[in-house]
């Protein structure tokens, strides 16, 4: 089973860089002998599908902005959550479900298991290499959750992984 973790974000746009910070931290803590690759990606849709193609399982970590929960809140999302929307996440790329469907149609090996971790942003509009305090506090929690989840072979519940 080949697993990939993709941290998504812009490392110089405050909390938008959460996924990149998480990827870098995960690279440090994951044992080198595990069959887990950690990647960074900066744009959604096809780029993400290209990053996870060829793997059996994928975890994607990204910053989210819902405006409905407190900054730093960790949100687990399923692929179905993403499928509720058919609209592009980016004016320049496909939304992820469409990109995944294209990958499947054209014969790319798309992981059957894809899990998402999101963290609600505080500020994703100011150019900075640093996360805001609430998101910074959530970073080690997300890293621990993803690490435990991957170590469990994608079986642990997020809450258990959190503990």
């Amino acid at each position, binding site marked *: 089973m080949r697993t990939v973790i993709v941290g998504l974000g812009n490392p*110089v746009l405050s909390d938008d860089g959460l996924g990149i910070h998480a990827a870098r931290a995960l690279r440090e803590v994951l044992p080198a002998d595990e069959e887990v690759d950690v990647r960074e990606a900066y744009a959604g849709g096809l780029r993400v599908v290209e990053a996870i193609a060829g793997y059996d399982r994928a975890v994607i970590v990204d910053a989210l902005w819902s405006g409905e929960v407190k900054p730093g809140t960790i949100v687990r999302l399923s692929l179905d959550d993403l499928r509720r*929307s058919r*609209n*592009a996440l*980016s004016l320049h790329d496909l*939304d*992820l479900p469409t990109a995944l*469907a294209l990958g499947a149609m054209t014969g790319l090996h798309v992981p059957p298991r894809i899990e*998402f971790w999101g963290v609600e942003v505080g500020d994703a509009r100011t150019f900075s290499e640093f996360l805001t305090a609430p998101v910074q506090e959530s970073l080690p929690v997300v890293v621990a959750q993803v690490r435990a989840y991957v170590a469990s072979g994608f079986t642990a519940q997020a809450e258990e992984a959190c503990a």
Partner: protein
Amino acid sequence: MKRIKIDPVTRLEGHGKIEIFLDDDGNVAETYFQVPELRGFEQFCVGRHAEDMPVITNRICGVCPEAHHMASVKALDMLFGVDPPPAAKKVRELLYMAFYVTDHTTHFYALGGPDFIVGPDADPRERNILGVVRKVGVDIGREVIATRARNHDVIRMIGGRAVHPAAGVPGGWSKPVSEPERIVIEEAARRNVDFALFSLKIFHDVVLASPVYRQLIESGVYLHRTYSMGTVDARNAVNFYDGMIRVVDPDGAEFVRYHPREYAEHIEEHVESWSYMKFPFLRRIGWKGFVDGPESGVYAATPLTRLNAADRMATPGAQEHFEELFATMGGGTVNGRRRPIHHRLATHWARLVELLYAAERMLELATDPEITSPDVRIVPTTVKGVGIGSVEAPRGTLTHHYESDERGVLTKVNLIVGTTNNAAPIAMSVKRAAKELIRNGTVIEQGLLNRIEMAFRLYDPCFSCATHALPGEMPLTVSIRDPRGGVIRTLARGVPV
């Protein structure tokens, strides 16, 4: 006044919002196209070493990092007073052509093309690349994926890193291209040429052959007779990497031709209280509002305007298709110059002509005997203190302007990005679409959303770096408001109302 609001309510800060104000008769009075502000880029950069900028600026955008990298290294060449060796310029341009092939391919098949190949009024669930694949065949999907993959490999090979190149340095490039790499790149370029020709054939067979689409392209919906901007070489052929900036007037006469470092003498930025985005215009003509014509300083910088501003394409296949485009869509010649094409939907066709040019130019460079020269860098020894660099980004002329102290520490940073050039034309196209579909209080609902999206898409705009959003929702909501601002109706896509 009634107000219609189209607000993409996503996590994503980088997307635009459109407000449409109606008059008392229910017709469009004004449209406002807004983008949220990204703060503090200049403060983020000032105080850093100038030579860090090619890697920092390629992070400000997940869509065209290669364009920022190139404009940035060119600005550094000037700031450090060094002219790179010819091989270094060719290596830079080679990477840049691979990037162009990827970017234009993605735009045509995933974003712009579905409106034409699947149909402008098709169900949004079909009007995407999956619909294209269903209509044209699964092989086209495989080709799009394969084209992206082989060009990403080339970018990684030359640029040192996938997506965000790191190899550009003041005075040249940090590593030469080896002969085994060159062989791979040449093969990729050949396949790119075939793919570009195939894409133009699809455009012919599916789009141009259909009276419905022809009518749409040639209709007045997005017709704006503005000035056209593009970068040209010594023979006035389109060039993406280097040259002079040429602007032609709405009838095609050369208005000005200047070196990119003189941009501030020719371009001024208009500010509106309702927008964080600035609206560049031609200084000598002046800002006359969101209007077209020779009296208005509004210009556009897109694939179509690059072709309008040039006299020719520098490669044979692209030249052939360039001539066909103008023979089909153009209005003949005036004083020996082709009349520009002002039907903005023709931008999609122009983008494919550029795709072929990028592929052919990539092949020329990949087979250039000098491309594997080890002489790719001159190490700078001075700091001049001012650096201005410019390239044609896929979505318009991109300018980086840096100033530094005598140690090379930045004191000022100004960028004019591709999309900014088109801020006023985008606003004008959105307004035109709104006027077309809102008449006397009657709103054609499905058509309105899509025609406004088509207005955006033809410019391929990029509002910020934050384009990687999950969960991938970009809902549009349209609120129609009565003269007191109360919502009387809401249309939405992708979001529960």
